[in-house]
């Protein structure tokens, strides 16, 4: 039987990896994947806690997170495609029209 702490630590590691990915990756798609990793780390924690408390609140939350993440994907990919059409690149370093 794996202890509760193991799940929380795993989810924390995944979350930190995702956060580092968002900050360090330059490719918009990879940044976006890192955000998804962070959300799924949170989902893992929610499911684990839900089991600990033997309630369904956490699992219900997870369903909502998955649904909302799908909506975010739709908008995010559309934005990335638009920027690719204008810039021929999805490197987020090329986005510096405005400074100051």
């Amino acid at each position: 039987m794996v202890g509760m702490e193991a799940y929380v630590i795993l989810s924390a590691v995944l979350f930190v990896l995702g956060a580092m990915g968002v900050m360090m990756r330059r490719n918009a798609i990879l940044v976006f994947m890192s955000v998804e990793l962070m959300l799924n780390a949170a989902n893992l924690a929610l499911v684990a806690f839900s089991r600990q408390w033997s309630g369904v609140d956490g699992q219900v939350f997870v369903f909502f997170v998955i649904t909302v993440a799908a909506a975010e994907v739709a908008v995010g990919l559309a934005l990335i495609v638009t920027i690719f059409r204008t810039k021929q690149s999805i490197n987020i370093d090329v986005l510096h029209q405005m400074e100051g």
Partner: protein
Amino acid sequence: MIDVPSFAELNLEVALPGIFLALFTTVLLIVDLFIPKDRKITTAHLTIGALVVAFVLNLPAFNAGETAMNEMFIADAFAGFVNMIVITGAIITVLLSVDYMKRSGIEHGEFYSLLLFSVSGIMFMGSANDLIVVFIALELLSIPLYVMAALRHDDVKSEESGIKYFILGAFASAFFVYGAALIYGATGTTNLPEIFRAIAGADGIVATENSAMIYLVIGAAMVIVALGFKVAAVPFHMWTPDVYEGAPTPVTAFMSVGAKAGGFAGLLRVMIIGLPLLVVNFGDAVETMAIGETITVPSAWQTALWLIAAATMIFGNFIAISQTNVKRMLAYSSIAHAGYILMAVAAVGTVQITKVAENDYTMVAVYAESALNGALVYLLAYTFTNLGAFAVVMSLENNDGSGTMLDDFNGLSKRHPLTAAMMAFFMLSLIGVPTTAGFIGKFLIFDAAIQAGLIPLTIIGVLTSAVSAYYYVRIIVNMYLKDAAVTDEAVGLTPYVNYATIVAFAGTLIFGLFPMLALDLLASSGAQIATLLF
């Protein structure tokens, strides 16, 4: 195991304003398909009609004090007030958009649907009584804004603004979900009043040795980070200037008031109802207390919010000084204003502990009510004032997005005396000069902060307000004392924009002269929150 509630038990009628708006928007998307491309003004009229209906529906639900959907949703004075702020703000935004969208060549019927979706998200946020609802409302208000920011799709600035907002917004949402997960892990519930009761514990005092405490503190910190992004607080503000500058101006105007109102509604709900008593370090004071004695301690998150508020006020105001683009200057000014409202949130974190009997304590966040009133009145004042300021900026803006520099305001008082006078009044309100609504908001917030013992923070607030006068007055000087080098007409000064400016001006003036109007509406909010908890 799971009881399926009956339809009547859901008590949907108290959630009617938000539900109506969300449903109407879905229908509007389809109706819009049948409206010919050159008559999109009809969609705008339908949108305003829907907002007016939602405003009326909000009145009976205003003071209901009832929960809906298994206590996930609550209609109280706080929710009603947030609804009023955002519906009024949205009506002004629609008035601003009609001509702007047409002359910039980005007139799409979907714009109004996106705006309404975002509005209903903010309305749900104001009524959220559960972390799940806060999350969904946060996304419902953000996702349409990502699209709206990138609406000017032939302009790379607008696309850039959309994608920057999207990436940082999604990043912040992930923080919120993880923070909510940790709070759930510590308390076993996502319902805000139940979180409050779980934290307060059986004997009325938080068990600091509890291992759940670490989850709670990290969870609260992550929620603050996530909502800090939404309200553009330093150090989570990096996206703000770029997004505000790049997005179409009516969208910027709505973002600066709507997204901020939504973010603060969520932050206030979570902090006031869920986590006010999260005190980590009592020191030795609690052990040595005599029966009947009362001490005041800061909650675990107060110092963090204190620092964020101070940094936000200082940074926002000082960087705004060096801006030459008025749109960008208003972006930094909106960061600074977030700092003032955060000051009110920090004031909630002063907790009073009374020892009633041996091993029996009561803990109360005594300044929650005055802080809440301050924050809400400030948001109301800021909504009118800032939308007004953006309306004037828009009337000077050219079709290609230029014309928003400081020098473009030179000699405005001679070309358009009425517009210039109203702009001057908005600037004075943003500084916080008496007889303007901005003054009332600042006064209430400083008052709450002083009561809560945050004297240094209040001093920083007053000093930075004085600093802000420099860049706001500069616009007045340009309008009245300088002569115009350019003589071109203000292309954006159309009747609709004029109506919007006048509505914003009236709001700023009326709430400045008669603050009791707003305060009376709020009178019952604090008491309601207290009865909800105990």
